[in-house]
């Protein structure tokens, strides 16, 4: 059933290909790709029918499909902020002093009902609208972890350990605020080098809005695909039995689940269920999984690099990871 559609599509384009060849090389590239796939269908299908490849593709497509509505939501919100909310609104809504603005922005993460795919474009729009980066980063880190949907999912996933919800909320908020304050003290604005972005000023509101949507989907979406591929590769290649070896040592297990959260890049609305199934690990180690995952993982790193620049992401990500692991260990020791 799926194949019936592809060949005619490729064929249609082939017909009007020659005229567009000079004008649009990228379109020609795409037509060539579709044609190639259509012509070499059989060998490609054979390679793709290996269980390993099938599993890889299933996970890849699933991560993409699952994240897409949230990405679109984030992109729409970001375009709304960029086009319809005047910068003065944020100047009034947030305390003047960055030290105070950070926790307020961190708590504001409660209202964004989505996962990390939505928070990156929104945080990008906040920075461009003049919100102090420290506050925007606190929001970026807290929003995917402490919103009601994610906390409810956590409560459902850990029916016997309700303190997990509190631990997750506290640890995530602490890390988000700490990162905001840290950026305020140590961060340098020249690390923030957002890639050139078309200016939508001077266009009509409609053109600016859809221009922003298109730009963000192409940007963040491309990196989302890369992150989904990385996560699929991991899921398909690393056997679960390796994890058992790590679970026995309390310190190693926290670190291992932190790294696993980075590598798996699971959506924050789902990670609680995955954490719940890692029963061979301690609650504290699983808390580290839940705190690290929404703040930094492969697809988030790619998306952050796209939104704020690679120099930023390279510095921000490792510190976030270290702080998130440490805080989870501490909060876990107290609350769990």
């Amino acid at each position, binding site marked *: 059933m799926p194949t019936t559609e592809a060949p005619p599509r490729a064929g249609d384009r082939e017909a009007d290909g020659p005229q567009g060849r000079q004008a649009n090389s990228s379109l020609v590239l795409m037509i060539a790709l579709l044609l190639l796939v259509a012509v070499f269908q059989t060998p490609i299908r054979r390679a793709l029918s290996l269980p390993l490849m099938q599993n890889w593709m299933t996970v890849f497509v699933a991560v993409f499909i699952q994240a897409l509505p949230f990405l679109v939501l984030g992109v729409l919100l970001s375009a709304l902020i960029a086009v319809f909310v005047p910068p003065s609104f944020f100047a009034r809504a947030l305390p003047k002093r960055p030290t105070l603005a950070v926790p307020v922005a961190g708590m504001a993460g409660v209202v964004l009902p989505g996962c990390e795919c939505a928070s990156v474009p929104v945080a990008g729009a906040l920075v461009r609208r003049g919100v102090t980066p420290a506050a925007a980063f606190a929001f970026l880190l807290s929003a995917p972890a402490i919103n009601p949907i994610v906390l409810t999912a956590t409560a459902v996933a850990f029916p016997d350990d309700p303190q997990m919800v509190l631990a997750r909320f506290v640890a995530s908020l602490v890390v988000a605020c700490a990162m905001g304050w840290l950026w305020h003290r140590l961060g340098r604005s020249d690390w923030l080098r957002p890639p050139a972005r078309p200016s939508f000023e001077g266009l009509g509101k*409609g053109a600016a809005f859809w221009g922003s949507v298109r730009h963000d989907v192409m*940007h963040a979406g491309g990196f989302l695909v890369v992150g989904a591929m990385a996560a699929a590769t991991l899921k398909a290649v690393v056997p679960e039995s390796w994890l058992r070896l790590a679970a026995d040592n309390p310190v190693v297990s926290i670190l291992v689940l932190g790294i696993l959260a980075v590598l798996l890049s699971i959506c924050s609305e789902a990670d609680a269920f995955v954490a719940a199934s890692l029963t061979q690990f301690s609650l504290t180690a699983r808390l580290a999984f839940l705190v690290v995952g929404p703040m930094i993982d492969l697809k988030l790193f790619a998306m952050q690099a796209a939104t704020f620049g690679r120099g930023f992401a390279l510095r921000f990500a490792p510190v976030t990871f270290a702080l998130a692991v440490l805080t989870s260990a501490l909060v876990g020791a107290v609350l769990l």
Partner: protein
Amino acid sequence: MKRQAQAVVLFLIGGTVIRASFTDLYLRYVKAGLRPFLLVAGVVLITAAVATVWYEVRRPREGAANRSASEHGDSGGHTHHEPRIAWFLALPVLALILVAPPPPGSYSAGRTGTALQRPPGFPTLPAGDPLRLSVLDYAGRAVFDHGRSLDDRKIKLTGFITLGDSGAPYLSRMSLNCCAADAQPVKVGLSGRVPPTLQPDAWLEITGTYSKKKAKDPVNDGAIPFIDVSRARPVKAPHNQYEN
């Protein structure tokens, strides 16, 4: 990437997602509850594609009328060289149109430990003989209630075959929390009148009764209960291959 090409990619993603939500293809990857959101996302993407083309077509005309505005638009136009990374967006579209990968089956179930967790309670079973239960429900009652609430009833289970390391067949069913990336199997061992040759990934409908036999999943030491098979019948894969 040129704007026209971006519009094409946006349109393809939106169209593919909408088609997948209407054909139940989406059920292979995500939960049924995501469908309305997928439809909305698809509509937004297609609107963005249409809007891109619309403003692209209108721009030169305005530019001819007003030179300074056109220069402004062009300065945006030159930096609009979106990164090549955006081409990656074609991959999931191609994967969905050309391959439509199947839900995770025995390969993934064999590599992942059974995800059985203690159910909140063991409500009395409804009437019916044989009684259809989910693999998860049966396994939960068999392991954590030691089969008391199963009460020697005749049970019907549907799942696919996964072969263990020693070739022992398990009836497995994947369950989904969010998307197929976190799909986890629940496995039930087969004892009694097990069909002599079983192919992995074959779907079976098992009729049988509670068996005291238990085993440990080699992957994660999770408990695997058994069912005493009295009848096994090959069936077609169900509409939604996941449980819950």
